[in-house]
């Protein structure tokens, strides 16, 4: 509840800051924001596209949030996405199974790919105490170059050196009924996968002994060790799960939103995942809504540009400012506390003294 309020306030402050920027370049913020919303939600197609944009972010947001919850900072989601996407695409381009089998297999290997990529930083952290921030950055670049050479080497598209062959329609996560329902938008089965992932991750974190252990290790590895938990194994496991989620993000991006995998790009969704996780207060449900918000911002910004003179780069600036406010939410929390105190000042004055003094 507390986090929700802080998140909402940071969003509002970010929007206000964005509005000021709009004023600064001589545009009308109200008009700008209204076109932004229209662009994201005006009709079913746009709603579908907004969800499609949000889908990979749900996964990367979950990935980063899960890592955060277990005391790890995974900034390697980009690389994990690439490898997840690569593996899924490789399966999709190579095998000719029936659609359900093929899709299930693609999802599985994509998840494994991401997990594999996160395994290395997890192992290095657990065994050698190598900081995962550095190792995941390194793994990002290794993924970048791996895809860079593997795609043209093995899955080259006809005439195209910079991307893979296109997946056949049956090897993508798009399905006709969904596409038709949302008037030809890019919404795909990934969204359902995302919702399922949110539920599963929330369940794991809150309700299972696994989540209990992983969080304990994240909060205090010494206490976890003291209580007999296998700290190293749990660190690796956390990274595997986090990487697997990012890998799924790659599957959704490259075989749902797109039908081919491009080289020479680290997917921005990996980094955006950090922002999504922060804004969602590292809570799976929060991540879902934060991802949808990002979807709205990214998706609506084009229409806003088309209708006004506001340049495209502004949406990114607003998002960045929102994150900064989320990062500095202490300021917001402090103000909230002050407000709260003012209202209940007299009552509390003598209470805790007695309680503290007794210990």
């Amino acid at each position, binding site marked *: 509840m507390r986090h929700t309020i802080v998140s909402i306030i940071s969003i509002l402050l970010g929007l206000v800051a964005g509005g000021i920027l709009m004023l600064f370049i001589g545009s009308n913020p109200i008009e700008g924001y209204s076109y932004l919303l229209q662009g994201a939600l005006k009709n079913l197609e746009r709603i579908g596209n907004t969800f499609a944009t949000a889908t990979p972010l749900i996964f990367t947001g979950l990935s980063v949030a899960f890592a955060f919850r277990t005391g790890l900072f995974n900034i390697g989601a980009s690389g994990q996405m690439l490898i997840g996407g690569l593996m899924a695409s490789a399966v999709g381009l190579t095998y000719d199974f029936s659609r359900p089998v093929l899709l299930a297999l693609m999802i599985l290997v994509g998840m494994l790919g991401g997990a594999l990529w996160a395994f290395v930083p997890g192992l290095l952290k657990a065994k050698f105490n190598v900081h995962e921030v550095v190792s995941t950055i390194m793994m990002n670049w290794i993924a970048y170059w791996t895809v860079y050479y593997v795609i043209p080497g093995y899955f080259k598209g006809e005439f195209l050196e910079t991307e893979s062959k296109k997946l056949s329609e049956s090897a993508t996560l798009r399905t006709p009924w969904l596409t038709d329902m949302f008037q030809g938008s890019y919404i795909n089965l990934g969204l359902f996968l995302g919702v399922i992932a949110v539920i599963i991750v929330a369940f794991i974190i809150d309700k299972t*002994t696994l989540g*209990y252990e992983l969080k304990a290790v994240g909060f*205090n590895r010494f206490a*976890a*060790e003291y209580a007999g938990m296998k700290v190293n194994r749990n660190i690796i496991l956390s990274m595997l799960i986090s990487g697997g989620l990012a890998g799924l993000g790659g599957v959704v991006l490259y075989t749902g939103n797109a039908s081919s995998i491009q080289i020479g790009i680290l997917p921005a969704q990996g980094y955006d995942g950090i922002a999504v996780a922060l804004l969602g207060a590292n809570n799976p449900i929060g991540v879902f809504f934060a991802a949808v918000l990002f979807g709205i911002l990214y998706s609506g910004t084009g229409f806003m540009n088309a209708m006004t003179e506001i340049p495209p780069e502004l949406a990114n600036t607003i998002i960045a400012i929102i994150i900064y406010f989320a990062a500095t939410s202490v300021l917001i929390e402090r103000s909230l506390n002050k407000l709260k105190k003012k209202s209940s000042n007299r009552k509390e004055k003598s209470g805790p003294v007695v309680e503290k003094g007794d*210990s």
Partner: protein
Amino acid sequence: MSYVVEMLNIRKEFPGIVANDNITLTLKKGEIHALLGENGAGKSTLMGVLFGMYQPEQGVVKVHGKEVHITNPNVANRLGIGMVHQHFKLVDNFTVTENIILGSEPLKGMVLDIDKAAKRIEELSKYYGLNVDPHAKIEEISVGMQQRVEILKMLYRNADVLILDEPTAVLTPVEIEELMKIMRNLINEGKSIIIITHKLKEIKAVADRCTVIRRGKGIGTVNVAEASEASLAEMMVGRHVSFKVDKKESTPLEVVLKIDSLSVKNNRKVMGLKDFSLEVRAGEIVGIAGVEGNGQTELIEAITGLRKAESGSIQIDGNEISSLPVRERLEKGMSHIPEDRHKRGLVLDYTLQENMVLQIYNKKPFSKNGILNKKAMKTYTQNILTNFDVRSGEGAVSIARTLSGGNQQKAIIGRELELDPKLLICVQPTRGLDVGSIEYIHKRIVEHRDKGNAVLLVSLELDEILQLSDRIAIVNNGELVGVVNAAETNENEVGLMMAGVAKEKSL
């Protein structure tokens, strides 16, 4: 007689608590003034005010009769006030000299003049009999030596009012003797000293006057010569205190824990525990006495599985456990009240109910098929909280971090005793607890013994060891100096052994 320092009617509040409430303390030139009070009474806070770390909400501080506003430690330094903190404030990987000059560095042009500083430190050290090597690194010298560095830090700044916050808690009796000698030297050179200590004996030994505070309020100042230990204790707590633990003769049964020639490396990768052997039987409490850092941590961590043993054997009920993982050792009936409640004892960001099942969350009824049962956790926790009088804001769902230190400790002890272990390992079980809680915890530990369980106790408080243990094993420099019967020994003997002097007749 003029006062060097006068603290008049000081009030200092922290969020939700009045740490100092109208306290007055005066320091005469050339005196040693003791400050006494329970944990959390507000002693450190009062000294923090004098040293410029906190600003009082009310009250006046005078130095040499002049009212001053000590807005930060620099101002205190300039006024000639120095402080040695309860927890040393030394940078581990700096040298003694670097630590001492930090904040008031001598320069030669733009460059630090380390040589000049080192020379001066050497001189000071000689003059006051401190015997400190200015070029040694802090991480490489003993705790006692580190304390002298802290004292040198003050002398280097020409402090003539020295504040020592619980300086003796970490020292051997021998080192304490030396410290007292040093303090007397300092007084002879015209310095004045305020010393905080919980040990009444020490107050009697060195202090001229003693100010007592209780729950943030000043109770009074007495001339030490006119007071007894008992009267000081009564002033401090507000009721009569019995210093004795009430317990029956022990009836040791079968061997529960058997340690044989155990050697363990410490953090610096050298042997911290060497060739150590010990037995603990059911129905007895065995205390480990020793100065901090003499192998206790290595011993306990090796037994509990938190640290690898280099050689030797550890058995519980005759089963070798030295290569088992932590969890399997716990399942053999061992439980452990850890030394550092924040580092190991609690997941501070977890609720109490999550903390209370830290070792058994994966057992029925707290989980089934990997799914947690929060209801079961809650009832279980509430039971512990009532039994051990753990006070918290929201009961079982309070976040552990929000509890006071004493209540955190009681919760941990409750958790471990609730497991009803065959072997209870207690490390510093009453650290940070007030006298009432200490009495209660001691009673529970003795009860646990009387139920026929084995207890291994590690404490840096010699009194606690002497009172609670049936047998006492003394360690020095990682080696077992000897084992004595508690009933047949005294503080003096154990103190000597802690300093490494072996006892001729060994048990």
